[in-house]
């Protein structure tokens, strides 16, 4: 196996804030320093990129000293929170921008798919756009011709191929755009969360195609996603970025686990992470499991999972309910409410419980998001609040007749 991509100490600095008259003097200062062969005076201040805390300078390092090797034929998932530097890394790799320092060495042709349908012209027909988009992505005309039928077939738009794409439904548009990209002949394919578009069936088709590209055709794939299930399914290796730095790198499975472990809190919910339409009326404070105040507690399959949600209500409401979503590997297993019907809630502290029966969950890592609904609040039919990925827990492996190791899937069917 040889190395397809070798990144050496790549860093990328961005100037934040506005470019205006004030920045010109600084530009001149910087230019003057460079002219005398000195270091850029505004790049020296090394700060990590934490978007929630206010830094002292206008320069942020979106990426800092990233080193990695990617083997030929590997499918690598790049994960991390919003603003961790994933997109910046992809932009550098796809040559849209250059690193501030460091270098990347690449073997083979790179095609990047940071967005579907880049360069589609609404007035042109599907046929014309296939050629234009293909050429923008780096294909030669004869290559596009060779794949033309396959592209149209993959997108499922035979009937509309000579219709301007502005008359396409948004789904057709996206399908056609992905189809072009999926038929690129490059050795390295870079894909940024483009699968978030399109319906479930098409997403599956895309994932299948990407799996094909990496496993059967032996091409290198770099894949950025927030969908941990897709990363686990598609990728062999994983890279975890945190505040612009490479935090972890191993197999995809281990990297996803590390991400869930490190990025998900210990159950304390900061008010900043709660979004929704009535955050001023109610807030969540803490999630805990079986009374354990620890980050990522482990629970035996034979135990019930008693999820306690604590919070404060600032204004009484007539019809409120707490809900909870449980995820495993990026797949939502269920969303459940604490009661069947809404209830009234008074101002003050509250505690709600949602209990998952013993032997229902199979061993593995689970991720919790919580929310609340309020019907009839201020004339809007449904108000909501939501806090994403606030807590995670483990179901450990433990043999028992009720927890058959040979069973498979996400949950055990309770035998009644």
């Amino acid at each position, binding site marked *: 196996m040889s190395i397809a991509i070798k990144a050496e100490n790549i860093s990328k600095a961005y100037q934040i804030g506005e470019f205006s008259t004030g920045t010109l003097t600084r530009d001149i200062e910087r230019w003057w320093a460079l002219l005398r062969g000195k270091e850029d005076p505004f790049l020296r201040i090394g700060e990590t990129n934490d978007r929630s805390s206010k830094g002292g300078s206008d320069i942020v390092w979106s990426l800092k000293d990233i080193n990695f090797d990617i083997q030929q034929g590997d499918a690598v998932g790049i994960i991390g929170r919003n603003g961790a530097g994933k997109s910046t890394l992809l932009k550098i790799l796809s040559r849209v921008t250059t690193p501030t320092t460091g270098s990347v060495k690449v073997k*083979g042709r*790179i095609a990047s798919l940071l967005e579907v349908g880049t360069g589609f012209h609404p007035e042109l027909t599907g046929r014309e756009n296939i050629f234009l988009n293909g050429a923008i992505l780096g294909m030669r005309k004869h290559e596009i011709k060779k794949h033309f039928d396959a592209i149209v077939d993959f997108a499922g738009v035979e009937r509309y191929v000579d219709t301007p794409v502005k008359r396409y439904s948004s789904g057709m548009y996206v399908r056609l755009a992905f189809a072009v990209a999926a038929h690129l002949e490059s050795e390295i394919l870079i894909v940024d969360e483009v699968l978030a578009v399109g319906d479930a069936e098409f997403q599956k088709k895309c994932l299948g195609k990407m799996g094909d590209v990496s496993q059967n055709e032996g091409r290198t794939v770099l894949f950025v996603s927030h969908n941990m299930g897709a990363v686990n399914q598609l990728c062999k290796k994983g890279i975890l970025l945190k505040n612009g730095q490479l935090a972890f790198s191993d197999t995809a499975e281990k990297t996803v686990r590390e991400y869930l472990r490190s990025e998900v809190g210990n159950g304390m919910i900061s008010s900043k992470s709660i979004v929704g339409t009535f955050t001023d009326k109610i807030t969540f404070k803490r999630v805990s499991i079986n009374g354990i105040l620890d980050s990522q507690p482990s629970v035996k399959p034979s135990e019930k999972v008693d999820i306690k949600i604590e919070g404060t209500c600032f204004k009484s409401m007539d019809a409120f309910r707490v809900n909870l979503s449980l995820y495993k590997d990026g797949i939502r297993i269920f969303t459940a409410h604490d009661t069947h019907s809404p209830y009234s809630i008074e101002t003050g502290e509250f505690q709600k419980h949602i209990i998952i029966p013993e032997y229902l969950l199979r061993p593995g890592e689970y991720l919790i998001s919580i929310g609340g609904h309020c019907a009839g609040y201020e004339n809007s039919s449904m108000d909501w609040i939501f806090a994403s990925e606030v807590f995670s827990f483990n179901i450990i492996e433990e043999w028992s007749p009720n927890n058959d190791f040979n069973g498979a899937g996400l949950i055990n069917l309770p035998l009644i």
Partner: protein
Amino acid sequence: MNNTLTTDTNWDLEIKPHDNLFNLHLKDVWSYRDLLLLLVRRDFVSFYKQTIFGPVWLFVQPIFTTITFTIVFSKLAKISTEDIPAPLFYLTGNIAWNYFSDCLNKSSSVFRDNASIFGKVYFPRLIMPISIVISNLIRFGIQFLLFLCMMVYFAFQGHPLHPNLYVLLFPVIILLMAILGLGLGMIISAMTTKYRDLTFLMGFGVQLLMYATPIIYPLSAAPARYRAYISLNPLSGLIETFRYGFTGKGEFFVGAFMYSVAASIVLFLLGLIVFNRVEKTFVDTV
């Protein structure tokens, strides 16, 4: 680990912060030639999509402008047209000027116009301005047919038109106007990615530049003390030579022409280098 490293020394591509200023990646441009043609086709096809007359509209603009110029500058202002029939005189100036100013305007905003594409996918950025020039060249070619028709018409009317050997310079003039527009455009586009101040200047500057070019008047009609300044404009020599070659009216100064050639080439090369320097990181600042 070490043994794999030693075998992998022949990289296809190295992404670095800074590149040689004079490395223009022309090989890259050549490998993307299909894209160039498709972009030209896109410009042309999207221009007349959903119109009834299609490319005929390309004739309408110069015809109406010529009529207006003839009435205003020739009939009202009585500016000399050096014995060339006034419509013919203004048509030459108009189509040549449109060609140049379109090349300049479009290539000067190339980074802003294409920021969304440039921000998402890599291809040699030079492809875009080149495609602009070729699109405009085709448009000019079509409008030039109009000029030829009008010339034949006036010749039959008995107007003394004397095309001469300098007509052979025509392709050179067209090329020079293209690279002059492209060069200036690229310089401006590079300068406006971070600070947009120049775009305001471009808005009316190009319009005013027309008056500093012998478009609506022949150079010979300009007062002597302004003539030197007008000659400093590299376009003056090109447009005068263009008219002279086809009509035999006016004068051909070798010096003025050579000055235009030199200025165009210098500006073009400068534009290439500046553009090349900016294209790498403009995404961060545009």
